[in-house]
C-alpha cells in the first residue's frame, strides 16, 4: 500500500516537468546583438529560427526585440512567435561592432547560466550589424548551420585559433589572459566570410587582426595547429606551405620571454620550376624569418594594446608561487621577446 502510494505520488508529481516536444517549440539557433541606435545601454537583439519545410529545405526567420537583459529579448520575441521560444539549440552568438566596443560580458554571462546551452557555442563578432548578418540566406541548411560549419572547419584545418563559449568564459575569469573571437563579414546576401580576429581587452573589443596575420596568431595562441601560409622567395616564386603540425614552446623569464615555434609542413603549391633541395631550404628559411618577424610584431602590438591573448600571465602564474599580478602587468609592458622558429618541410607532393 505504501509502495503504491509512493508510486502514484511520483506519477502525479510529473505534471511539474515541462515538456518541449520538438515540433511544438521554436528553437533559437543563433542570436545577434547590436546597440540600439541612439541609445547608450539598450541593445537590439535578433534571434534566428529555422523553419523546416516538408521538402527538407530550411527557411531562416529572424525576430528582433529590444531590451536591457537577454531575457527581455526572449520576452519580446515570444510575443511574435507562434510557439514558445527555447534556447537549447543555440550555436552562434554574433556581436555587432558597437556593442563589442561597449562590452559583451553581461550578455555572454547569460549563456553560461542557461543549462540548455552547450559549451561549444561559437561567439563571433561582425564587421557590420549582427542583425544584417543573420538576415542573409546562406547555404541550404540554414544560416546557423552554415556559419557554424564555416567557423568549425576553419578552426580545424585553417587559421582560426580554437575558441568556443567554454574557453571564452575561462578567459573572462582568468586573470592574465584576454579573449579573442573570430570576426565575420557579410559580403552579399548569400555569402559570409571570415574577416579577421577581434582582440578583446576584458570584454571590450580593442583591435581586429586582419586575415593575413591569423596564421601567426594561431601559431602563438594554439598549442598544436594546422594552417596555411604563402612564402615569397627572393626570385619572385611563390610557395604555399601547409603546416600539418606545429608546436610552440614558451618560457617566461623575468624580463624576457622565449618562444620557440616548430612547424612540420608540406608544400602544396609552387610557382617556380623545379623544387630542389636548395629551394626547399630557401622556403624553410624564408618561412622561419617571416614567422619570427610577424610574431614579434604581433607580440609588440599586444604589449601596446595591453592585452594578453596568448595567456602569458596565466602561464607565468602557474609557475610562480605568490604571484603578484600588479607586478606582472608592469613586467609585461617591458617584456622582451625572443622568437625562434624551426620549419621542416616533410613532403612536397607526389611528384618529387
Amino acid at each position, binding site marked *: 500500500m505504501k509502495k503504491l502510494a509512493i508510486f502514484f505520488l511520483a506519477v502525479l508529481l510529473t505534471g511539474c*516537468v515541462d515538456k518541449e516536444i520538438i515540433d511544438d*517549440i521554436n528553437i533559437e539557433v543563433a542570436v545577434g546583438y547590436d546597440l540600439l541606435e541612439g541609445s547608450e545601454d539598450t541593445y537590439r537583439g535578433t534571434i534566428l529560427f529555422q523553419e523546416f519545410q516538408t521538402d527538407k529545405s530550411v527557411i531562416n526567420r529572424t525576430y528582433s526585440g529590444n531590451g536591457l537583459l537577454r531575457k527581455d529579448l526572449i520576452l519580446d520575441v515570444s510575443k511574435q512567435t507562434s510557439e514558445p521560444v527555447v534556447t537549447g539549440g543555440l550555436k552562434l552568438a554574433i556581436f555587432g561592432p558597437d556593442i563589442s566596443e561597449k562590452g559583451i560580458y553581461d550578455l555572454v554571462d547569460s549563456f553560461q547560466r542557461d543549462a540548455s546551452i552547450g559549451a561549444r557555442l561559437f561567439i563571433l563578432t561582425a564587421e557590420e550589424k549582427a542583425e544584417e548578418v543573420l538576415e542573409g540566406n546562406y547555404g541550404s541548411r540554414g544560416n*546557423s548551420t552554415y556559419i557554424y560549419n564555416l567557423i568549425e572547419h576553419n578552426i580545424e584545418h585553417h587559421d582560426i585559433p580554437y575558441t568556443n563559449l567554454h574557453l571564452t568564459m575561462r578567459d573572462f575569469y582568468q586573470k592574465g589572459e584576454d579573449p579573442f573571437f573570430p570576426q565575420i563579414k557579410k559580403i552579399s546576401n548569400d555569402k559570409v566570410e571570415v574577416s579577421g580576429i577581434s582582440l578583446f581587452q576584458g570584454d571590450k573589443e580593442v583591435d581586429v587582426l586582419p586575415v593575413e596575420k591569423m596564421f601567426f596568431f594561431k601559431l602563438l595562441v594554439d598549442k598544436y595547429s594546422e594552417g596555411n601560409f604563402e612564402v615569397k622567395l627572393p626570385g619572385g616564386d611563390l610557395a604555399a606551405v601547409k603546416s600539418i603540425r606545429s608546436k610552440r614552446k614558451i618560457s617566461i623569464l623575468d624580463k624576457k620571454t622565449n618562444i620557440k615555434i616548430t612547424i612540420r609542413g608540406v608544400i602544396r603549391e609552387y610557382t617556380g620550376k623545379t623544387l630542389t633541395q636548395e629551394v626547399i631550404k630557401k622556403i624553410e628559411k624564408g618561412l622561419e624569418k617571416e614567422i619570427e618577424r610577424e610574431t614579434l610584431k604581433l607580440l609588440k602590438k599586444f604589449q601596446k594594446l595591453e592585452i594578453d591573448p596568448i595567456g602569458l600571465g596565466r602561464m607565468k602564474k602557474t609557475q610562480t608561487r605568490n604571484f603578484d599580478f600588479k607586478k606582472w602587468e608592469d613586467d609585461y609592458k617591458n617584456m622582451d621577446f625572443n622568437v625562434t622558429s624551426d620549419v621542416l618541410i616533410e613532403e612536397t607532393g607526389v611528384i618529387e
Partner: protein
Amino acid sequence: MLSSLFLIHSAKWASFLLPSIHKISKTGNNKFNAENDGDFPMKRWLKNKRIKEDVKHKEWEQSFIKSKDFKKIFYYNQKTNIRFCLTFMATLVDENIIQDGILPNLLEDEFREIEDIKQLVPVADVQICDDPSLIEQKLMNGYVMLTVETEMKHFGFIAAQKEIVRGISQPEVEFSVIGPKEAFVESLGQNLNLIRKRLPVKELIIEEFTLGSLSKTSIAMMYMENITNEDNVNTVRQRLTNVKFDAITDSSYIVQLISDNSNSPFPQLLDTERPDRVAGILAEGKIAIVVDGSPHVLITPTTLVEFFSSFEDYFLNWLLSSFFRLIRLFAVAFSILVTPIYVATLSYHYELIPKDLMNTLITSRREIPLPPILEALFLELTIELLREAGARLPTKVGQTIGIVGGIVIGTASVEAGLTSNVLLIIVALAALASFTTPVYRMGNTIRLLRFPFLFFAELWGLLGIVFCFCILLTHLIRLTSLGRPFLEPLYPPRVTDMKDALIRLPFEKQSKRPLYLRTKNPFRFSKKKAEEKQDIDE
C-alpha cells in the same frame, strides 16, 4: 442380404460394446471364450454364479466401469482350463501386444498360477504384486492387469503401452544451420534416450517423479553424479516434490511452479528443445528437468547471459560467436531502449539532437497530431497486434498478415499522418532486434519490458529511462535461479565465467566449469595435460 444386415448389426453392437474383444475373437481361439461356451450345462451354471460375483464390482472398479474404454474380459486356458481375466484401458494399451504377445501364450501354454506369466509372456516389463492400491495407477499407465480366479490376492501387470510418438523433427525455435538437427518430442522416454545417447556414462543419473494430482505427469530430473552440486540437486528434488498442482501438461508449468520468483517477467529456468544443449549443460554441472508430454527440457540453475547465447555459438569459431553474441547484446539493448529514447528525446531533450538530424525529425513530425508517446504507443501496439495475430493464425495466413500489416498499415499510417516515418523505422527495427534472442521466452520478456520504459520516458524523459533501468537492475540483482545469482558473472563479477558470457573464448581457455554452479569437480579437463605436446610416432 439378411446375413449382411446381421453382420453390420453385430459389428455395430460389438464395436460399441467391446471393440477390443471383437478383434480378439476374430483372430484368437474363441472356443473357450466366456461368451461362447454353451456346450457344458455344468459350466453354464458355474458361470452364472460367477457372473453374479463379477457384477458385484470391487471398489476400485466403481468409477472405471463408467468409462467406455475400460475392459475386463475373462478367458480360459486351453490346457489347464483355468479362468483368468485381463483388465486394461483400451485407449492406453496397444492391442497388438495383447493379441500377439500375451493372449496366445496365456491361452495355449500351460498356465496354472500367476507366477507362470514370467515364463509365458514374452514382454519385458512384467510385474506381480499384491497391493490393490497400485491397480489404478498401473492401469492408467497402460499396463494390462492379469488376475487368476484361484489367486484373487495377486495381480500380474504386463506392460502394453501404446506409444504414439511424433517422429523426431528439426528444432523449430532453436534452429541452427550448423550442428545436430534433432529436437525433443513429446515423449519422456524418447527424450531421455536422446540425452543418454549423448552422455553414455553411468554417472548420468535420472530420477523420476510423478507430479500433478490429476495428470500424473512423469518428470525426470537428470544430473551428473560426480559433477553436479549436491545442494542444487536437493533443491530441485525438494521443489519438485513440493509441487501441488492438478494437471501439469507442459514443462512451462514446472518453470512457473518451481522458479525462485514467479512474479518476475524473466524466466529463471532455461528451456531448450535441443538434446545437444542439454548434454552440454549436464556436463557443465547443471540440472535438466524433462517433463513427459513436453518437447522442451528445462535447465537450471541458469543466468541471464545464458538466455542470450545460442547453442550454435559453440559450433562456431570463438571469434565469430563472440561477435554474434555482442551483436545480440546490442540488439537487445536497442530493442528495449530505442523507442523510449525517441520519446524522451523528442519530448524533453531537443538539445541532444544533432543539428543535422533536427531537420529530418522535425519534418517527419510536422504533420503528426499526436505527441511522441501516443505515436510510439500506437506503433508499438500495432506491432504487438501483428505478432499476436501472426502467432495465432496458421502459418500461411500468418505470413500474409505479417506482410499486409507491416507494409500496408505502416505506410498508410505514415501517409495518413498518424505516425512519423522515422518512428516507423525505429519501431520496426526494435521489433526485428527483439527476434535475435535465441530463447523465445526471453524475446517475450523483452517485448513486455519496452512498455514500462516507454511509460517512464514519457514521465521524466531520459531521467525516467535511467530510473526504470535502475528498477530493472535492482530486480535482476535480486533475482536468483535455484538460489544462485541470476546476473552472474556480471554481478557478482567472476572472471572465470566471463569467458563464456558476453563473449566466448576458445575451448582450451575454458578448462573450468562455471563457478556459480559450485560443482564437485570444477575442472573440465587438465590444462596441463592439454598443453603437453604429444609426440607423433612415425
